[in-house]
């Protein structure tokens, strides 16, 4: 059974190493500041007891006043999982550090989010639109997207 770790003690472990990274937590997820995302991710991956070596999915949700980017991480060695969430409040061009350097699997998923949701990931090797053609204006999955018709 993949045991989901409780958000609280993961937040506590992160808090010991990176004091001001964690902003909030609930029973399954840990909320982290946007800037500290890369260090937290590195900590979660390299830490021997946690060992989150498998990035299952990255999702972006548009809550009008903020974007929420959710990372589902799993550890194949210990068979446990955690959900890492960040929020960015700017609406024009929200940017987050890219985690491609840690998990190669994030490459296409981040390009997917950049293309459809408009959240840029700096540090990504070739951040280009993945489904829509280069000259496409706007990001369709945003709630306030007005299609051309």
């Amino acid at each position, binding site marked *: 059974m993949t045991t989901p770790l409780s958000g609280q003690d993961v937040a506590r472990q992160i808090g010991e190493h990176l004091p001001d990274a964690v902003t909030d937590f609930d029973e399954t997820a840990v909320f982290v500041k946007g800037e500290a995302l890369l260090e937290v991710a590195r900590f979660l991956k390299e830490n021997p007891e946690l060992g989150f*070596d498998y990035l*299952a*999915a990255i999702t972006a949700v548009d809550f009008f006043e903020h974007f929420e980017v959710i990372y589902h991480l799993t550890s*194949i060695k210990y068979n446990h999982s955690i959900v890492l969430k960040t929020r960015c409040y700017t609406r024009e061009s929200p940017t987050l550090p890219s985690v491609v350097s840690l998990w190669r699997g994030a490459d296409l998923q981040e390009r997917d989010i950049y293309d459809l949701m408009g959240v840029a990931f700096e540090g990504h090797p070739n951040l280009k639109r993945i489904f829509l053609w280069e000259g496409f204006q706007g990001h369709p999955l945003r709630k306030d997207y007005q299609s051309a018709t």
Partner: protein
Amino acid sequence: MPLKTEPVMINFGPQHPSTHGVFRMRITFDGEVIVDMEPIFGYLHRGIEKLAESRTYTQNIPYTDRLDYLASMSNNLAYVMAVENLAGIAVPERAEYLRVIMAELMRIASHLMAVGALLNDMGAFFTPFMYMFREREKILDLFEMVCGQRLTYNYMRIGGVSQDIPEEFLPALKRFIDEMLGFIDEYDQLLAENEILLARSKGVGILPAELAINASVSGPMLRASGVKWDIRRADPYSVYDRFDFEIPTGKMGDTYDRYWVRIQEMRQSTRVVKQAMEQLPQGEVRAKVPLTLRPPKGEAYARIEAPKGELGFYLVSDDSANPYRFKVRAPSLINLTVLRDLCLGWKLADAIVIFGSIDICLGEVDR
């Protein structure tokens, strides 16, 4: 003085006999060897995630058929489980068993399609493809008997399945299961030790285990690289913990192992279906769920072991009848991150075979 040849760039266009759908690769050659390769997506992008946000939870079920159109039952199963997590609905026992039978039959049909197409790319003139399609037809007959359609089933509902199985379904399924093991042995006899197949696939496109995990590859590709990770065993959903079946894993992670893992998985799936058939309880098949369900505010992520890999649905609900966010974790798209690493240094003929062994479905890649 080296022979001056400038690299040739060939467009493996969206319209090509061996790109399993509208998938395009821009390959740069030096002589015959591949120097650079860049996949281009988006030719089948229908924007299912945006469409789903303006439809109720039940109306989205037919849309999930169109994601990985070669394994529609698994898509239905994943989506419906996500909604049940979201709304906290309990599913009756008989429906769980029926879902397992349908999902495993779908896995066999999808693997038959994958291995048949792979052999076709290798040049076997449609013969293995025809044999495997004969078995796939039998499975489609069974599905048609249960839900009326052969490709887009729309069989599963939130809280169970749409209808119970007719009484002539079980004898037909029993006949199919008994014959299937014989047919799989036939494929092995035709292909497993075929010297030309070995020469074309052994050691071609090796995917090391840690690169596979790092690139979040899932499904037969991950297990072919030797990583024993199958969600049916690691995180058993519905009633999978009541069946015993092994998880076949390869040794080197090359094209031959990927082929071998898929053949073994077909055998294991027939074992699961046989056990599920014996333990099938009686009872009704569908919990009382209003057609326009309004799940409480919140989010849920459900994932299953689809034939192509870990298929996950992430739903966010805001008390209305339509999902606020409908995200599909498509295994085919993420498995493609390693396509470039596997193909570099090999020849065009190998790139086609490696691409065939990854087995993607464009409906799921471009959503």
